[in-house]
């Protein structure tokens, strides 16, 4: 295999909190190939978004920092690169869309101005060329009547349209990686379907690799080729989506899949109680301890889990699970 587009190795991100320094990302490694789509799943507070912010170099200033490990993009080490270079990469090579399309657009500029700004900053286009590209981009993300809507302000658009504008901005410079942090959580399900459809089409056309962050297993199943399940700042399990969903090797993955009432092909009168994952994600101050952080919620817990952090156990086709009992799951 050739060198992956993005290679994250033993990444550790620390946040300064009132209780001291906490590793919100603790020894995370993964790779992303060109044109591939990978998904991060987990509950809130498991470090999904922090991973994305770490890659983007957007960790909260003075509070968060990459403590060790490496993020290598196209062979270039991002953890040590200058802020200036990072700014050139962001938006140009790696760009991001956020959960809240309401707050991620500037309300006092038209959407056209905001898209054009990206093109002018990164590609040095002239004002009129950038404006024309903005119209083309709006058209590409299927905003009807793009020529007129380009002069709209964000408030004149619906939530789904705003998210399309965000996608247009993110794709303006044809990035190699698009990081989508819960891009459809604030949207209705029919609009979500439109956005997913759009992302899939764009991926096919432009070959952009996608990192999708979500808590919805269904979305993972439809959107991604590989997935990483995060728990308390650590990778709990990773592997090809179909394989992980069919045969999860970590009790947390299994719990995440079976605790949700899914719509299935043929509904019957039978209704089982949902499998519960008792308890909640541990608080930050417990992150980084040398034990399995999921142990307190796990039905398979043994003494070993409380004594030592489980190593990653590898299975076929690149599936791996950080659980002492992975074979038995």
């Amino acid at each position, binding site marked *: 295999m050739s060198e992956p587009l993005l290679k994250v190795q033993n990444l550790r991100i620390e946040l300064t909190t009132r209780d001291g320094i906490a590793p919100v990302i603790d020894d995370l490694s993964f790779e992303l190939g060109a044109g591939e789509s990978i998904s991060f799943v987990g509950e809130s507070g498991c470090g999904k978004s922090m991973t994305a912010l770490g890659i983007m170099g957007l960790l909260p200033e003075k509070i968060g920092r990459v403590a060790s490990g490496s993020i290598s993009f196209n062979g270039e080490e991002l953890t040590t690169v200058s802020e200036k270079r990072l700014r050139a990469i962001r938006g140009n090579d790696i760009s991001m869309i956020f959960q809240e399309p309401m707050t991620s657009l500037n309300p006092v500029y038209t959407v056209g101005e905001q898209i054009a700004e990206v093109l002018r900053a990164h590609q040095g286009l002239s004002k009129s060329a950038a404006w024309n590209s903005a119209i083309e981009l709006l058209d590409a993300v299927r905003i009807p009547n793009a020529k007129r809507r380009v002069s709209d302000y964000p408030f004149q658009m619906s939530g789904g*349209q705003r998210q399309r504008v965000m996608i247009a901005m993110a794709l303006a410079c044809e990035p190699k990686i698009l990081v989508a942090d819960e891009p459809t959580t604030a949207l209705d399900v*029919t609009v979500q379907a439109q956005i997913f*459809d759009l992302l899939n089409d764009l991926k096919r056309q432009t070959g952009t690799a996608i990192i999708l962050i979500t808590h919805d297993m269904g979305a993972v199943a439809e959107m991604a080729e590989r997935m990483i399940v995060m728990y308390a700042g650590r990778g709990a399990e990773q592997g090809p989506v179909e394989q992980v969903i069919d045969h999860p090797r970590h009790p947390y993955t299994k719990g995440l899949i079976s605790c949700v009432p899914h719509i299935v092909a043929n509904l019957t009168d039978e209704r089982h109680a*949902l499998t519960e994952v008792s308890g*909640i994600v541990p608080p930050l101050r417990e992150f980084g301890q040398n034990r399995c952080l999921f142990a307190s919620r796990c039905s398979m817990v043994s003494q070993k889990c409380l004594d030592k952090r489980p190593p990653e156990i590898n299975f076929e086709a690149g599936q791996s699970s950080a659980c002492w009992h992975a074979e038995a799951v």
Partner: protein
Amino acid sequence: MKDNVGNKPLLDVQNLTVRFTVKRGGFFSEPKYLYAVDDISFQIKRGETLAIVGESGSGKTTAALAVARLVKAYKGRVDLDGTNFLGLEDEALRLARAKMQFIFQDPYSSLNPRVRAEKIVREPLDNLGAVDDVERQAIIDKLFEAVGLHPEQQRLFPHQFSGGQRQRIGIARALATQPDLIICDEPVSALDVAVQAQILNLLRKLQADFGLTFLFISHDLGVVQHMCDSIAVMYMGKIVEYADRLSLFNNPLHPYTKALLSAVPSVDKKRRAETKRILIPGDPPDPLDLPQGCRFANRCPVAQDRCRSEQPDLKALASGHKVACHLVDESAVSPL
């Protein structure tokens, strides 16, 4: 399940309409009305769950609020156990409210941050004044146990609980007056998936234990599928389809329902292979400027001229499955 009370539904809602006055234009111009809920009717049998589903702006929450008289209904009837709830006043209303309780979406803003958990749960009992102090405490202890909280947690304030625990407090509060009907407005939308399962299981257990009747409002069709006995699908203030659980999920008839169901991402490989995703383009119409015909016509892939000119009524098929679409006939085949 208590089904010995005959065929009379516990909750019978007829022609419920809610309109809001929207001030627009100048001082002398006519007021404009937004019909958030437009002439809807539904029934729930005792011990059962009816889910109202729909996307944002469909009117599902407004309908629930109107049933509970938390917003004013413009027209219609809400019969709870045989009495018209909307017609009650003063003391009769106060007592009747005990029979209908509400669980809210956001467990963060629906609990008073300055009041201890125990008092939050006790307040409905205090308001009712039916039992003495000792008995009240006994009820509270029982409620805390029923929703899975420890007795010592009664002394804590809301911020000392997690989101799921807070929702449990909200549920205990709703149960305090021994209501017949509980309206659950998106009770798990604000919670993490693992916690959702805990709350959904709890609600179903309480329903079985206490013979509760639920009006369940949700946009999450997976959750609805798990919780309900029948479902009403709302679009732009109207019920477009209304059927029992199996009919609706296995044979959706209205094009909107069909598109809505097809849009739900699923981990079920078989379903993904079998379901063709139906993308409905565009956005819902402006609620202040509704089209003359079917409200879904502008996005409907199979709309015909008649759909654009004439509004379809919600008609019952022989099977009992109700649908508001010109293109569905007795053969019960979806036009899409």
